[in-house]
């Protein structure tokens, strides 16, 4: 006869995650939030916007804002290679569902991960803001960071960065 724990383990929820690479680090997002993956088309940048706002693209007649995920995470701006992709995701912002495109260095694979394999993010390694990370997935020797999308791309954060940006540019102006 199986014990209750075994039973629970047996019926555990397995969810799918899309993994991608930024520089040498691995990240993953819930597959349910991913709409599609695109090659990089012509991008129109909007003047005077924050650095991590990479511009807008024409997605079949709709205007899709692009975010340079690397700048967002404090890395160098993305350099376009053949592997560069746009992951179109759906996020919840101010009670509205929005689609945005996130630029990533390369898209890897879809992983099926049981919930029990997701470990809480270690609080020691504060390289990335902790509220951005939902947890860690262990894979061979690597850790994959599972992103909390609504948090990462919340507009409040955009506004905050925006202000910082504007202060910078205004000091620039006065210097001139």
């Amino acid at each position, binding site marked *: 006869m199986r014990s209750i724990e075994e039973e629970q383990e047996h019926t555990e929820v397995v969810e799918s995650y899309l993994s991608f690479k930024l520089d040498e680090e691995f990240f993953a997002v819930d597959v349910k939030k991913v709409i599609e993956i695109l090659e990089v088309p012509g991008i129109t940048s909007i003047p005077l916007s924050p650095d991590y706002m990479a511009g807008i693209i024409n997605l079949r007649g*709709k205007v899709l804002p692009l975010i340079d995920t690397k700048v967002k995470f404090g890395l160098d701006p993305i350099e376009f290679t053949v592997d560069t992709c746009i992951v179109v995701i759906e996020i919840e912002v101010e009670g509205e569902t929005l689609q945005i495109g996130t630029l990533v260095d390369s898209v890897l694979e879809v992983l099926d991960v049981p919930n029990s394999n997701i470990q809480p993010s270690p609080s020691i390694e504060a390289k990335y803001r902790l509220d951005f990370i939902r947890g860690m997935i262990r894979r061979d020797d690597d850790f994959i960071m599972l992103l909390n999308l609504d948090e990462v791309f919340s507009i409040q954060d955009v506004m905050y960065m925006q202000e910082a940006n504007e202060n910078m540019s205004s000091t620039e102006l006065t210097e001139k």
Partner: protein
Amino acid sequence: MENLHNIYLEEAEDLFSKIEESLLLLEKAPDDSSLIAEVFRSMHTLKGSSSMYGSNKVADFVHNLETIYDRVRGREIDLSQPIIDATFRSLDHLKKIVQSPDIPDPIDAKYHEKLTAEILGLLDESEGTDKIITRAKGTKKKTFLISFTPDKDIFINGTNPILLVDELAELGASQVFSYMEKGLSSKTFDPKKCYTSWDILLVADDDVNPIKDVFIFVEETSKIAVDKVFDGNLLSLPEFTSQLPPVDLKGKRLTLKNIQNFISKIPKEVLERQEEENQIMEVEVTEEVVTEETQKTHGSEESITSIRVSSDKLDELMNQVSELVTTQAGLSMYSENNFDPVLNAIADNVEKLSRQLRDIAFEMTLIQISNLFRRFNRVTRDISNQLGKAVKFVTEGGDTELDKKIIDSLADPLMHLIRNSLDHGIESREERVKKGKPEKGTIKLSSYYSGAKVYIQIEDDGRGIDAAKIREKAITNRLISKDDKLSEKEIFDLIFVPGFSLAKSVTDISGRGVGMDVVKKNILDIRGDISVESKIGEGTKITLGLPLTLSVIDGLLVKVQETSFIVPLVDIKKCFEIKRDELSNDFNELIKLEDDKIPYLDLRKEFLIKNEDVPEKASIILLENENNRIAVCVDSIVGEYQAVLKPVGKYYRNQEFVSGATILGDGSIALVLDAYKIIARKIVKQKKSA
């Protein structure tokens, strides 16, 4: 359910405004029967949908009102002022209670009772209820023979033939004969099959359609025959019923011949009497039938000329169409570069078709402004009564069509302007008589097309605005200094400054000084403009100029480096080319144009675009809003472009100088610039450096 409720509320609102409009007209012409019929019809519909939605309190309330108008329609009573007043009050009350049909608020509930009593009182004054009701019920009755032999496998479809027979019986008096198939034995009997058939004698209205409708789901498999056997109610004649065979499962089926046989045996006098009775009933109901018919034609006309579509669907349609137009532009461009005559022809056709489609889709999103005007009709009536002023409210050009979004955002500013005219513009009766003006003041609300714009005017023949007074007030408020020389237009524009009010006393209706500035802001928000003309003692005219739509913008396509921008054409005064080095030396960022010096904004510098491959020549676009002129320097001008405006999303809401984006023919994106914000940027900069 939520959805249904919304549809119901929408419909109710429509009906309210329809009734209100007709009532207002009826006040002037209480004998107009078509208007009365219109009111009655709308009330009837309202009652129907209310009871369907389950708010019986509303339905009962409307029912009483409807009865009054039914009598008015039948010329039994005249449409008196008390009735009209009571109806108006009832409408206001109804507007409230349709939102929460249980009437949770005790004050509302009390009012509800009071109004109901009042209406019942009005009803009592005009006796004669019974007549109408009996008359309404009388209709021509005919006798039908229906023979129904269901398909043997009818049970497999889940149909119960007995229910169909029951349903028939609900249509009128009936006599049912049922039969079992002969020669059934316990061996051959299959319980899954139907062996029964029926003959039904039915007395119903002279229309076979409701009868046939009963069998609508089985008519393909079962044998059904419907025959009219007699112009009258046979089942009410004992001479006929006595001849009918007893109900016997094994009996012979009734045929048309049987029935005719029975009829022939009935004494002629009896038949004639029956026919006569039927005739009398017909006479009595003719009127009813006629009005019903007119109702029907009216109803069908309406349903043909307009259908209800949710605005979301229209928006979606507009999106798809604009996408199509963009794709088509791509095709045209490709075909022009590839000299293939067949492709060219196809591309031309697609272009023509998609342009037509765009125009049609675009027109569909427009609605007539009369919907909005109607609302003010009522408000003017109420406010002028409240103020004790006599005002004639005239509307013109209600068929002018505008984008729904524009109409929605016009409601508040227009309401404010009309209130102003009523409160401050139109003088009291005595004052008007003294001045030799007609006792009744006039407020005219009109609307017309001119070019790519729609103009809306509010005109009154009241006391007008005293420019000198505004000047004085502006000086005491330190808006201007004593030495400032202002044109009349500039003086009138002062009334749009926040906090500026000329009213001597704050009244209920207007005069708090918050208002005109909000009006102006609202109008600017929908890319419109506002201007005032006034003559003391003669009246005031306020003109609003509005774009036809918010989703399409006529613009000039320009380029700075690789980025395309669209500048709205309405804000552009002039364009010309200069050499770039003429600009670069300029310290104050002023450019000489004719005899003027105009501040300029170099978009390259402004948007921090790298100074690579700067072309020798640059183009200057002169932007102008009412007070400011600013030159904007771009690399080149491509040409005019009709842009379908798309939002760039919340992430870019801080880049407010971009009012949206549009997709060009080659699939690339151009940013639509907000000229006002660009001008504001420049002004702020000037102030900073000063």
